Each structure stands twice: as C-alpha cells, then as structure tokens.
C-alpha cells in the first residue's frame, strides 16, 4: 500500500511512513480500441511534493493526467485522489473534490469569450455566494501572483502571448487555492527566460500556498529545477518514480537517452551537489531548503 511497493529500491531515500498520499493509482489499464496506453500502471503522489511525469511522445502522460482528474475513464484499475475513488463518488462529493484541485491545460483552455479577469474569476463566481467586489479583488491578486498586472485584466485571450496564456491559465487553476495542482506542459513553447520565470513562480507559489504539484513536462531544465521526484513512463507503465539523482542510475534505454544524452547532462549540472544525508524529504513543503534552488527564488516579474 505504500511507496515501497512501487519504487522497490529507494536506497537511503525518503521515509515512507512520514509521507501522506494524495494520489494513488493502482493497476491502471487504459486502452483506446486496440492501442494499449497503460498496462498495470502504479503511481503515488505525496503531499507537498512536485512530481514530474516524463516519457516519450505518445507514452500517455496527458492521458494519465486526464484519468486522474476524471476526464477519461480507466479501462480498469483504481485511482484515488485524497483517498476518494472518483468512480464511486456522488455529484456533491465529486464537486467538493474538484474544488480542491486545479488543472492548467497544455494550451491554456481559457474561455475565449471572457476577458482575463473574468476567466480567473469564473471558479469564484461559480460558488454563487461571494460578493462581486471581493471576487474581482481576489482575481486581481491571483493575476499579480502569476506575474501579470492589472493592466492585463481586460485583455481577451486571443490578444495574449503564449507565455501570458500559460500564466492566466495558472491563475485560473489557482483561483480557489487548491491543495493539488496539475500542470500539463507548463513551459512548452516558452522562451528560456519566460520558462525560468515560470519555474521561479511555481517554486514561490509552492512555498506560499503549500501546493502539491503534478507536472507533465518535456523540458529538462524545468524538470531538474522543480521536481522532487520524477516518474518515468515507458513500456505502458511507470518505470520508476524517484529523485533524478537516483533515477539516472537505472539502466533502461529511455532513461539513458533522456537524461544521459548531451542535453540531459547539461541540464543535470543545475542540480545542487548531493547532500551527504541523501535527498531532501518532500514531506515538508514549507521548508525552503526543500527546493533545489541555489540562486534564491524570486516571484516572476514579467
């Protein structure tokens, strides 16, 4: 039932009994017609950590994310989020659960007919009982939190640049201050400066709001900078879910290619020197020492 079952050898790693599980995926099978996407996949996500999911194109990263939030139904297997199985929940309980997580879509999925501020305010307005001036202020605050200013509030989604769309999408995902945030390719298509800003932003938010983050990404730099653990999706299952430093010791063609190629080597140099006591435990999200951050994070200032 605990982490040791999935990540069998976590030598000198985290203390499994101190972690609380937020997401628990067991024996997940997903097929689209003949095509097998996941076959007996297992994964745990712990409170307060940043877990990145990597894998080749078409390895089912996004499909896994969509199944966790209930946009796709698994062919078989169980998925529990906050201890609840989505399949057995009633409508009210499901809504309560959905209010506890936020999802930033790959291409933003902003409502094109609404302005930036209305997009962010939408989850708050949907609660139907809060006074509107309060909602506007809270939405402005979220806008500022992701590094945009009140001047951008009345823009329409079609007028935004790619980086701004990602930021607004994140602000909307954070509107209800969820405990759990899913990020689908958060830095894909951003220039390196913007994606560095974004990394600093997520780090800051994580410290401030105590977020648990599940992130699908292709970007090695983001991956190295943010992840506490990395789950590698290959051969239809999670090959391993461990800190990068331990992950690269695994002998598997995908891992060799991905992490130990030239690009991977370059990105890995950003890792802080390994502490003698083993990698930091992700069980204490509030402690700043947690984030592998030599430079000292600043909120995004775009």
């Amino acid at each position, binding site marked *: *039932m605990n982490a040791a079952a999935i990540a069998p050898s976590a030598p000198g790693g985290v203390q499994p009994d101190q972690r*609380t*599980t*937020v997401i628990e995926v067991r024996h997940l099978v997903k097929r689209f017609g003949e095509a097998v996407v996941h076959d007996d996949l297992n994964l745990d996500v712990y409170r307060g950590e940043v877990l990145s999911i990597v894998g080749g194109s078409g390895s089912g990263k996004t499909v896994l994310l969509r199944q966790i939030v209930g946009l796709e139904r698994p062919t078989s297997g169980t998925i*529990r989020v*906050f*201890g*609840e*199985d989505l399949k*057995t929940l009633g409508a009210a*309980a499901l809504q*309560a*659960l959905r*209010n506890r997580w936020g999802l930033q879509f790959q291409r933003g999925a902003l*409502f*094109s*007919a609404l302005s930036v*501020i209305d997009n962010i305010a939408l989850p*708050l307005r949907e*609660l*139907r*009982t*809060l*006074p*509107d001036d*309060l*909602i*506007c*202020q*809270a939405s*402005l*605050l*979220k806008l*500022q*939190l992701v590094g945009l*200013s*009140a*001047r951008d*509030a*009345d823009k*329409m*989604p*079609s007028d935004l640049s790619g980086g701004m769309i990602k930021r607004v999408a994140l602000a909307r995902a954070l*509107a*209800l*201050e969820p405990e759990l945030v899913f990020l689908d390719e958060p830095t894909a298509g951003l220039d390196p400066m913007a994606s560095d800003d974004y990394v600093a932003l997520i780090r800051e938010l994580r410290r*401030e709001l105590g977020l648990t983050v599940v992130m699908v990404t292709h970007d090695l730099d983001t991956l190295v900078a943010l992840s506490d653990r990395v789950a590698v999706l290959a051969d239809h299952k999670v090959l391993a879910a461990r800190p990068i430093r331990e992950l690269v010791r695994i002998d598997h063609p995908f891992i060799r290619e991905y992490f130990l190629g030239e690009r991977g080597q370059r990105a890995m140099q950003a890792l802080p020197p390994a502490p003698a006591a083993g990698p930091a435990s992700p069980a204490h999200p*509030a402690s700043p020492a947690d984030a592998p951050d030599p430079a000292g994070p600043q909120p995004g200032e775009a």
Partner: protein
Amino acid sequence: MPARGLESRLAHHFPHPLESLSTPAIEVTRADGAATAHLRGDWTALALSDCHRARALRHELHTVGADAQWSLAGLGRLDHVGAQLMWQAWGSKLPERLEANEAQRRVFGRVAGLRRENWKKHMVDRFNPVTLLGASILSMLAQLANGVTMLGQLAFDLLRFARAPQRGPWREISANIYSIGYKALGITALVGFLIGIVLSYLSANQLRIFGASIFIVNILGMAVIRELGPVLAAILIAGRSGSAITAQIGVMRVTEELDAMRVMGISHGFRLIMPRVIALAVAMPLLVAWTDVMALSGGMLAAHFQLNISAAFFLRALPDAVPVANLWLGLGKGVVFGMLIALTACHFGLRIQPNTRSLGEGTTASVVTSITVVIVADAIFAILFKDVGI
C-alpha cells in the same frame, strides 16, 4: 458498501479524506472595555461560500473595527479571499494589535501588495440606443465595403479560373456540389411536396366555388415555377449550407488555418470563396428544378383528390398555362440566389474573430442576412421582369 469500509481503512493513510470545511465565525470578548475578536474556522473562498455568510461576516468584521484586538490563533485555513475580507474591514492596514502566525502574515503581505493600477470593473454600455444605432450603422458600412471588395475579388478569381481552368479548384467545387446540392435533395423534396399539397388544397375550395377548377393548373404552375420553387430552395439552402459555410470558415480562423493558407500563398478568394460560389451557382438551379417538380407533384396529387383533375390533364395543360419564360426566370433566380448565399456565408465566415461568441453570432447573422438578401433579390427580380412570362 465497500466504499465505506475502504474509507475507514485508509483513514490513517489519508489524514484529510474530504474533510468538511469548518464554518468561519467571529467571537468577540470584552474585558476592561477592550474588545478582542477571535476568528475561528476556515476563512477560504470555499468555506465562505459553503456557509452563505460572506456578506454577513463582512458586516460583522466591520462592526468590530480595526482598533480592537484581533486574534487569528484559532483560525483554520486562510486564503486570499478570506484575508481580503479582513483587510477591507481593517481599512487596508494590519491592525495594531494582531495575533497572527508567520504564514498568515505572509498572506496579508500578498494582499497588501495588490496594485490595482486604477483598474475598475467596466461595463460595456450595451443598451444605449444612440450607441447601438451608431455601432450598427458603422458596422453596416464596413460590411458593405467588405462585400463590394469581395465581389471584386470574386470577379478577378473567376477571370483567373477562366484563363487557366486546368489549374482551378475542381476538387473543391465538386465536393461542395455534392455536400450542398446532392445532400439537400431529401429535405427540398419533402418541403416542396408538402407546400404543393397545402397550396393546392387551399386554392381548390375557392376555385370550386367559382367553378373555375381548371385554373388550379395556372395558379400552381405560376406560383411554384416562378416564385415558390426558387425562394423555398434558397431559404432551405441558406439555413442548411449558409450556416455550415460560415462555421467552417470561422473555425478555420480560430485554428489559424486561414493564416496558414495565406502564408503558403494560397488565396482565400480562389480556394475558399470561388469554389463555393460556383458550386452553389451550379447546384441551386438544379435544386430549384427539383423543388419545382416535387411541389407540382404534390399539387397534382391534391388536385386529383380535391378537384378530380387527373395528372395527365394537369401535365397537358401546364405548358399552355405557364409560358416557358417563367421556367428560365425561376432557374436564373436560382443561380443568383445561390451565389448570394455563398457570398454572404463566406463574408460572415471571414469576419469571425477567434472566440466562441463571435462564432455563434457570425453563424446566426449569416443565415438571417442571406435569407433577407434572397428575399430582397426576389423583389428586385419581380420588378425587373414584371412584363416577362405573364
């Protein structure tokens, strides 16, 4: 059943299985004339909305006032919405005597850092008649100009097509004829047939009173071939295919396909507009003829039962009752209506902005406008050809 058991089994594993939010509340104690406000429960957007008391709590906060002693020690969770509620009550500064922990102070720090930069929620004046009139006149002028440009572009494209027909968009033309013409055969047949029956039934009673049953052939023939056939077919096609063309081109705008075409040097006029105009110009007269046939057969059937006029007699009398010029006029109308519908639909399709609301508005406007344009054109035909075929 098993869900219940599982929940308890997992209780140690998940410390917060959907914990119910605790209701936010204020407790005021007074000692030696000094008030102390203890805030309890969760002050988050979800908790505040769950208890439906956001406004009441704001009022309570205001009545306590900033100069009291505030204790947040008993507070559960605090988010920006809850913090903002307090911040407003405190007059946008932390109260002097505040008991709060580091995390809570950090949240207030965020709230304090909010820069509004004069942003105000602004409402667009959507109902002022002067604004509305001005906006609609400007929009009409712009659309007219756009329509004229498009017509000119179409003329150039047709010339280019005539000069090198082997390099024309034949595939698009035939695909459009199939989807706009062939696939509409069923609906035009049904509507035409029923209208023929209705018209025949209504006229039959009047004609019988005057003993002029024979004239059913004139009434039906003239009405259907000259007017009803073309207009019916045009309205059906405007609703069915006009909307489809607008939505299709509109989505191409949303997905940037239009820009992709332009970058590759593929002209919108030559590849999107002209094939549809040609396809409708070809398909519409055929549909008009088809609708005519179906409406006349419906009328014949009704005349047979109501007035005992046989189909053979009806068909023999038809050429004498309706001069053939009417048929050409009807088919000619079909060509013109078809081109107008295609042009209107393309015009609105290309105007669509990349957002969902614009797509809906554009499609509606396209159908309404093309039906109006068809009827206006029909009136012009009636005036121009008042001496032909009557």
